């Protein structure tokens, strides 16, 4: 297994961790952290797979830079919204009744 492939596999594992956390964790700050872990996983895969015979390819690195900018902006927006929710409701969680898929009938 080449070094590049190890990075890509680690990235895939991080991606799965991130997605799982984003869906399952109730605390919103943890959800935001999980999103960042998921993003880092994708970036590792991009850089890891984007190598030709051991020489790094600059194009995916430029893409990762763009991706990091987007992730920082999204994280900032998410944190601002969560702070707002905290000051409005005093909780850093989604309200109970509107959680998950099973809440459809309760909206009646």
């Amino acid at each position, binding site marked *: 297994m080449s070094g590049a492939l190890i990075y*890509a596999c680690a990235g895939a594992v991080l*991606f799965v961790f*991130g*997605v799982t956390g*984003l*869906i399952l964790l109730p605390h*919103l700050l943890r*959800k935001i952290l999980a*999103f960042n872990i*998921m*993003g880092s*996983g*994708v970036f590792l*895969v*991009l850089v*890891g*797979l*984007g190598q*030709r015979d051991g020489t790094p*390819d600059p*194009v*995916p690195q430029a*893409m990762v830079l*763009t*991706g990091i900018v*987007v992730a920082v*902006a*999204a994280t900032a*927006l*998410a944190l601002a*919204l*969560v702070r*707002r*929710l905290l000051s*409005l*409701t005093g909780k850093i969680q*989604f*309200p109970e009744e*509107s959680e*998950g*898929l099973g*809440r*459809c009938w309760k*909206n*009646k």
Partner: protein
Amino acid sequence: MFDPVPWLILLPLVWGCLTFLTGVGRGGRLVLAGLIIQLVLTIILARQIVMEGARHYAVGGWGAPLGVDLYVDGLTGIMLLLTHVVALPLVVYARAYFSSQAEGASYFWPLTCFLLAAMNALFMSADIFNIYVTLELLGLAAVGLVAAAGSAGSVTAAIRYLLVTLLGSGAYLMGVALLYGTYGSVSLAVLEPLLATTEISAAACLAAMLMLAGLLLKTALFPFHFWLPPAHGGAPAPVSALLSALVIKASFYLILRLWFDLFAPLVTTQAAQLLGGLGAAAILWGSILAFNQTRLKMLVAYSTVAQIGYLFLLFPLMTSAIPGAAESAMQGGVMQLVAHALAKAAMFAAAGVMVLSAGKDDIALLGGMSSHLPLTLFTFALAGITLMGLPPSGGFIAKWLLIDSAVSGGQWGWVVVMILGGLLSAAYVFKVLRQAFLPPVAGIKFKPVIRMLEWPAFLLALISLLLGFRSVEVLNLLGAA
């Protein structure tokens, strides 16, 4: 020759930055003037597409594979025209709306301009990484608009929407990474022949699944619809109209593009049947939930969940081997997209006027609306006609083409779903209309509303109704290659 392509992305960005300078909550007149210019540009572009066919545009003179390419064809033209035809009346509506209710007005104008810039860029993007960037721009602008009302409910809806859209674009970017790792390019023009000629790799299949799953999440297809009703139902009315009419169509447009161009060698009949099945479930489940709502804007939001389902019926219908069936399925799907965008913008705008006048979002309080706001109620009913698919509306043409394709292709199951869906949408539209014709609830005082709130919504509903007579032009533009 004057080329409107780069201006359609640059101009809304310029308006967005300028409205920051004009100050919080101001700048509506500037956006109105800007959108008129953009509408003229899209009409010029659509004419060019019809006359000269599809073409590439190299940004800054740097062509692919080094630079970023833009690509316009008939479908792009339809989406751009639709965006501006829907957005222009909504801008007039929003100016009137925010003059009577300041809540949510603060950053509406710059965010709307960024939303339009992101959508225009998305429709014209020709490489999968650029599409990712525009998807994120679109998502962030839309989340900002949802949160603008500032109440706990809308902030919760905005956070949920943000997390969903980030998850969706994360999955999409993973797909891009896998495709780049396998084929060494992100340009659609380079990838398409590569995927079509080489042996299908597992990485490409996984990439296709991740990208499509991410986009389905953003399009809110059943069972991924859970985030849509609170986000669309809780936002200020002009925002709900923009989101429900246009933003979800952007990710559907990408699914359409990827499914039939890039991933055409990978997709199977079973996958298409699965999408159609989810669409059918969305139609029935969304309509039933819409009927069960007690809040008017939530009813309209659930109706969006149902109407998205019709769009996905075109995937199984396109697999038909009968000549003509696949073609009319595509035409029907695109007509449904256009008709629903116009009707849903009109319906949310009309619902916003009624809620503003009644002071509270509750269907039970609508009694007496028929004599107080007859034009707005008429608008709601006209939009309802398109959603039900009654002639001569655009929705009728769309459903007719889809049913025609299903019948000639021998796929009878979808016909039953579409007819049932039409009946169910009639049920929830008439639920509202019936209440509006009852005598007013004791003690309720309707506030008067200004005229400029009612007419833009009516105009949108009228366009969606008259679309039935001009559908040939739309389908001509679609066919321009």
